[in-house]
Every structure is written in C-alpha cells, then in structure tokens.
C-alpha cells in the first residue's frame, strides 16, 4: 500500500478534488449522502445549538448572582430557561455531538470504508434531528397563559407538573420524540457499518478504540431510546386526551414515569460519555506517540459500562419513595459502573508512562478530560452511597457532578476531537496559540464555575431555584460560579475566532499532522469524495513506528516514502 501520492501531490500539483469540492451548490449539501458532509451539517447545527444553550446558561448564572429574583423577568421564565438549557444541551448537543457529528465524519474513514452502511438513513436521521430541534425550539416563540417563552417542565419532564403546566409542553415532547428517532437511526446505522463494512483483516481487536466506544454507544441508542419514545407518547396522550397513566389525579403513578424516564436517561448518560471516552483514547494515544496501554481492558470496559448502564437507573430515585430494598439493590449496582470507569482512567494514565508527549491543543483537552472525569466520577461515589445521597439529592452537588461528567468530560472530549480532526475535516491548520488560549480559558472558567457548586450543594442549596435565602452562605459561591461561567464564555469566543481564522487564512494541513496511524490519517486532507482510492492495508492503529516527521508539510509521512518524492 502506498500513500505517497498525497504527500507528493500537495505542493506541486493543483489541489486534488476532495469531498468539499467534488460537487457544488446548495442542493449538493441538503441532499448529500456523503457521510462527511452529513457530519459537517450535524456539526454546524450542534455548535449553533451549543451557543444558544450556552447563552441561556449565562442568563441563569446572571440571575443567581444575587439571592433575590431580580434579573429574570419572572420565576416562570427562569424555569423555562433551565428547562431549555438542559433539553437543548442533552438532546440536541451532547447526545448527537460526538457520534453524529464527529463519528459520522471519522467512522467510515477509520474503517477504510467509502461511507456508512445506509447513507440515506443517515441523511434522514439528520432531518429528524432538524425537525425535533424545530419543535423543541418553537416553544421559544410561543407564550402560554403565564406569558412565558419556552416550557417550564424541566428537562426531566416529571409529571404531574408536566401534565398540569399550561405551557406548550406537548410541542417540546414531540421535539424530543423526533430527536430520539434521529438518535436511534444513527445508532442502527453505525452498528451495521461496524459489523459489515470493516475491512476483512480488521478483526474486532484491531479496531481503533473510538469504534469500540461508538459501537457500545450505538447499542445503547438502539435499545434504550425506544423506551423514551414510548414514555413521551404516553405523556402526550395523557396531556391531550386526559387518560390517566402518570397523573395521580386520574389514577396514574408519577413514580412509574420516573422509572421509564431514567430507564432511558441513565443509559443516555453513557450515550454521551462513551463516545467521549473513545475520542480520549485516540487523543491520548496519538499525541503521546506511544501504543495505548491496556487496549483490551479499555475496549471491554466500554462494553461493560454499556451493559451496567441498563441496570442502575434507580440511583436517580433514591428519595422518590422507592422501597429501601430497591434502593439498596440500585446502590450496589451503581457502584459496579465505577469500576470499568476507573479502569479506563488508569489505562489512559499508564499510556502516558514512557511516552513521547506533545502538548498540543487536542492533547490538552484529552488531559483535561482525565482530570475532570476523575472529579465527576469520584463525586459520583458520594451520590451512589445511599445515606449520603439523601442529603445531596437535588442539590447543587448533583448539578456540579453532572456538569463535570457532561460538560467537563463529554463536551471537552468533543472539542478535543474537533481540534484533533479539524485539519482532516477542513484541510486547514489552526493557530495553536489561539487553540491553547481558548483551552485554558475554558478549563479555568469551567472549574471556577463548577467547583464552588459542590460546596454549595453539600451546604444544602437546592437545584432549580431562581432565588435563595441570603443568610445561608450560598451567595459567595454563586458569585464565583457566575464569574467562571463568563470566563468560559470568553474562552468559547476565542475558540470561534480560532476556527474562523483557520478557515479564512489557515495554512494547508498535512494529511497526518499528529503522526496517528488509524486509517483516517492514511487518506488525504480533506478526504476525497470516496475516501480511499484503494482498500487500505490494515495495521496496528496504535503502532506509530512507520511514520516520520516531515518539516516541509508540517506533518508526518510514511518512512517508506522515497525521500526524493517529497519536496524538501
């Protein structure tokens, strides 16, 4: 196999055709079946949604600067803010973030395939996402009788409140229902793609760890999301037809809803974190320039996490009036998830041992993931322990814990992956300086925002409060948290500038800027429409010995490339 044509063609010949230039016009994008373009469509929409939900987070943090309800227009409007912030971030950003945006782009490349197994289903999944987002966001422009824009159910949609509320909850429910189907289609597509489109020589244990993570995630998406869909339908039926399922006033059981909801939404936490862990395995290995440590343990722990995640949903309900026996069972099962998570962290750490570590922007995100996920995971021990959870449940301790897991871990990995594959996706390099500045702003801002929330929570500050007692000692922590949120916002603005600058004036990127060896680094940047001209040879994707640094292109080239063919 040879990849020399890429390196040699770069500076001498006119740029070869790639997926961005292979066809032109609006129609070539909105009807595209190319997994790379669909990945881009997802990526752009997800980043826009992230910006919107992030802006709402700033509104929330601004309201909480002072104990009184003085900045939000009303308590109801505040409630709608945190509902939308949560619903957009969970259903529109984090769940599709890594799999549908990055995964869509990278997965077929890593497999050496031309596309995913079902390109049309892939496009349909994107339009389901768009439709779901439309329904969910339409509530922003409709005010119910209380003159509040948005819905006030909380993203958890607990009845009876979600049934009694006068706002347009059914629209939001329909939106989440469609987003769920988008997720199911993506999962189904990726399972089949990984099962059937692997090159003959790529056995399961030769796959990049990112694919193990995506595969485990896809199984969760296909098996758990239908339960959410059914639950939402029941809720819509109850709201519109008055059939008693969850509302006690009609003979229903609101705790049953919580079981159904968390039966999906706990696996959903792993739908968010598993692909992120897959990204981190790639970041750590490639930027450490060393074979990943404990490949099989990392791979199997993904599968173990996916399996355990189905039987721990009750830990969201320790104070929901479940019986003490059920609580004890769910607490024990919950701790079982902590073990594979710990195994992953230790294996990443061991990968750094005797490595050759480049401190690049993606690597900073990878290392930050390990730190923040460790904090998020360890504080999960407090919440899994029954008696301690009773004190901490529904306080800011929980808010801090899940932000460390979802924002600090899942989104940090997503942004790490974005920087990692950016040169491959766009064919452009970005400013390492701007990348690192934005990373440090986000990392410092994040910790300033969420570390104080642990203490606030253990001191007793309940979550979802628009106002709080001035004499309980919460105010200082809230101020620190708000300052952190603003610092983070500045960091994201710098990141935006960095990417715009790269697109406008970035240098042409090398095909393999980091020295990685999984198959996506073997094709051109940006990849041609059909990805690979010939079926690439399958090798150990964590063995980096075949590549050497080439200063002229600013990336790595195969050692087998004849020196004369590369411009010096």
């Amino acid at each position, binding site marked *: 196999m040879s990849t020399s044509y890429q390196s040699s063609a770069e500076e001498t010949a006119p740029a070869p055709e790639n997926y961005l230039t292979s066809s032109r016009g609006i129609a070539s994008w909105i009807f595209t079946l190319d997994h790379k373009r669909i990945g881009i469509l997802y990526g752009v929409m997800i980043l826009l949604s992230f910006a919107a939900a992030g802006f709402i987070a700033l509104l929330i943090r601004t309201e909480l600067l002072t104990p009184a309800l003085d900045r939000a227009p009303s*308590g*109801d409007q505040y*409630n709608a803010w945190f509902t939308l912030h949560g619903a957009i971030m969970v259903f529109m950003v984090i769940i599709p973030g890594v799999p549908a945006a990055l995964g869509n782009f990278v997965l077929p490349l890593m497999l050496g395939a031309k596309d995913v197994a079902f390109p049309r289903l892939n496009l349909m999944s994107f339009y389901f996402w768009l439709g779901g987002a439309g329904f969910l966001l339409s509530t922003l422009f409709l005010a119910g*009788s*209380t003159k509040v824009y948005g819905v006030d159910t*909380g993203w958890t949609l607990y*009845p009876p409140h979600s049934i009694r509320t006068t706002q347009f909850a059914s629209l939001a429910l329909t939106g989440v229902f469609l987003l769920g189907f988008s997720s199911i289609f993506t999962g189904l597509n990726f399972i089949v793609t990984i099962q059937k489109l692997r090159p003959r020589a790529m056995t399961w244990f030769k796959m990049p760890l990112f694919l193990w993570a995506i595969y485990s995630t896809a199984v969760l998406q296909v098996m758990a999301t239908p339960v959410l869909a059914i639950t939402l339908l029941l809720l819509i039926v109850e709201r519109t037809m008055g059939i008693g399922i969850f509302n*006690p*006033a009609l003979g229903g059981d609101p705790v049953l809803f919580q079981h159904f909801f968390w039966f999906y939404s706990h696996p959903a936490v792993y739908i968010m974190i598993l692909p992120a862990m897959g990204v981190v395995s790639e970041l750590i290995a490639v930027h450490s*320039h*060393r*074979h990943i*440590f*404990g490949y099989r*343990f990392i791979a199997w722990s993904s599968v173990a996490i996916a399996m355990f995640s189905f039987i721990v949903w009750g830990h969201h309900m*320790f*104070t929901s*009036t479940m019986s003490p026996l059920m*609580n004890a069972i769910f*607490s024990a099962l919950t*701790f079982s998830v*902590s073990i594979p998570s*710990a*195994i992953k962290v*230790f294996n990443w750490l*061991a990968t*750094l*041992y*005797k*490595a*050759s*570590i*480049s401190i690049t922007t993606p690597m900073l995100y990878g*290392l930050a993931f*390990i*730190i923040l996920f*460790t904090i998020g995971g*360890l*504080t999960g*021990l407090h919440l*899994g*322990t029954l*008696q*301690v*959870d*009773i*004190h901490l449940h*529904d306080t800011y301790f929980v808010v801090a814990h899940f932000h460390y897991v979802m924002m600090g871990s899942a989104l940090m990995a997503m942004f790490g992956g974005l920087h990692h594959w950016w040169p491959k996706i766009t064919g452009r390099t970005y400013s390492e300086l701007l990348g690192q500045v934005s990373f440090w702003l986000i990392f410092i801002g994040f910790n300033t925002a969420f570390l104080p929330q642990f*203490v606030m929570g*253990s*001191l*007793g500050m*309940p979550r*979802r409060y*628009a*106002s*709080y007692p001035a004499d*309980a000692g919460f105010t200082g922590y809230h101020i620190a948290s708000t300052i952190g949120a603003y610092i983070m916002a500045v960091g994201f603005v710098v990141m935006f500038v960095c990417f715009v600058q790269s697109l406008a004036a970035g240098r042409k990127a090398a095909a393999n800027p980091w020295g990685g060896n999984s198959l996506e680094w073997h094709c051109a940047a940006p990849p041609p429409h059909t990805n690979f001209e010939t079926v690439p040879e399958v090798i150990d994707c964590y063995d980096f*010995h075949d590549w050497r*640094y080439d200063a002229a292109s600013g990336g790595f080239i195969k050692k087998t490339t004849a020196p004369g063919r590369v411009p010096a």
Partner: protein
Amino acid sequence: MNPLKWMLPPQKSNFAGDVDWLFYYITWVSIFFFVLILVLMIAFVIKYRRRDPNDPPGEGPEHHLPLEITWTVIPLILVIFMFYWGMVGANEMATPPANAYDIQVSAQQWSWQFTYPNAKSDKDLHIPPGQPVVLTMTSQDVLHAFYVPAFRVKNDIVPKKYSKVWFTCDSPGDYQVFCAEYCGTDHSNMRARAIVYESREAFEAKMAILDIRPEGRSLEEHGKIMHTDKGCAQCHITTTPKPGQILLAPSWRNLSRDFGQLREFTDGSRQIVDEAYVRESMRTPSKKIVAGFGPTMPVPTLTQDQEDSIVAFIKSLKDTPEE
C-alpha cells in the same frame, strides 16, 4: 480537627454525625485518588514530553495484567464499604421508632401545612426537643420534597401517596426547610422554618395557641395574617393588578369589589359574588373556576374562625387603601 468541616452545614439531628462521617470518608478517598492521578499525570507529562518533532515514538509497555488487577480490586474493596455503610444508614433513616411524635405534612404549590396530633396546623414545623419526630407527608398537586439540610433528611412527597421522614433534634433553634423537588413557578419560595423548642413545655405552649386567634385581634387583622400563614398569598394578591401583571389566581381586592356582581366561570356558568360563593370556593376550590385561570388551588385546612377571618379580610379590602 476536621479540615473539611466547612463543606457541610451544622449537625443538628441524630443522623447528621453518620452522614457526615460517610461523606468525609468518601471525600478523603476521592481526594487521595484525585491527587494521585493528577501528580502522576503532571509528572509523566513533564518527564516524557516530546522534545523534538523527530523523536521516536514512546516505548512504554502495552499491557500489564497485575497492574490491571490491582486497580480493579482496590477500588472495588473501597466502594463495597461505601455501599454497605450507606445502606445501613439509609435503612435506619427509613425506619421510624415506635415512640415517635406524629406530624402530618401537606405540601402544595407553593406552601407547607404541618398538622399536629391536636389537629391544629401551621405553615412552619414545630419540633419538640429530644423526641423522635416522624413526618407523614402527602401532596395536594405535584411532586415536592421535604429537605432540611441541618438534619440531613430528604424525601419526595407524591400526590395520593404517603411518604415518611423521621429524625430527632436536641438543639433548639430555627432551621431552613426547602422544597427540593422542582414544583413549578414558585418552587424556590416554597420554604418553611423548622423550629426546635428549648423545652417540652415551650413546645406544648406553642401547640396550645396554634390556630387560635389571640384575644383582642379583629377578624380582619387575623384574616390578613392567615392570608400569608395558610399559603393564600402564594397566588392571591391583595392589590389591584397592574396592567400586564401575570396573575396565578384572582386578586382578592378585585374580588371584594365584585361583591354583588356577576362572575363568569370556565364552564360558562355565572354567579353573583357573595359570601356564600367565597366560602364555597374555599371549601371546594375546583368547583367554580374563574374564567382565565386554571384548577390549581388546593383545599386549605381552616378552622371555622380562620375561614370567618379570611372572609372578613377579603370583604374589608374594598375600603382599605392599597399598600
């Protein structure tokens, strides 16, 4: 001396010591592993940093089974202890003793009603010192949760279902009660006080005067106090609504002006506002819903005198100046 003491509120119940001990144990384990991971990471990143782009790849080991087993087994042992102690403690919290003092709790959007064995009730929780107290709780509308950080107790409150919380408190004082389960518009203001008395006698003295209108207080005055004490004020304002103001329920000032006039209800029926209508609406709030509002009002627990006071207060609003 405990360097982590600032992380938890003062210990004011029989459970607080156990909960805090377990919290500190888990926190110290967490700090140990966090520091270990952070220090190793920083050390590796410094020691094994890539100095030149032409450096060869790192040559560390690819796997090491004894190491994998070590970091699987040690955390496993540590979490088994967390699970066990947490379960034992939670079971104790779920099992009220036989001699506990019974208080009924009714939660509603967005106020509390605590009813004592003498059938009297109040918006605040009064607690006899040193005796176990068991709260039997139910909700009138949506989910709520009873939470007192100083006592470390919390449990959800579900409509048509009874849940319990119990504790013993020896320290006289005034503690914050929160609603910890999101319950809509005014969730963050659904707070009450938990007052622990100096002595049994002081507690009994308070019990004796609950729900009783003090000598010399007029019905109107008492009604005004009941307006806040019984939670009416969470939705019913006593001023003239400003243009564009969002109302959760009809203004009582408008109601007092409407006496003798027709009111229209959501089912299309109409009635002339009089005292009988006002009393009926307090006893069966969902029967006649004023057009433009929802059926959200819970049934208040009122003595005859309290009902009379509230009616008198409403009627008096027509002639009193706005505040």
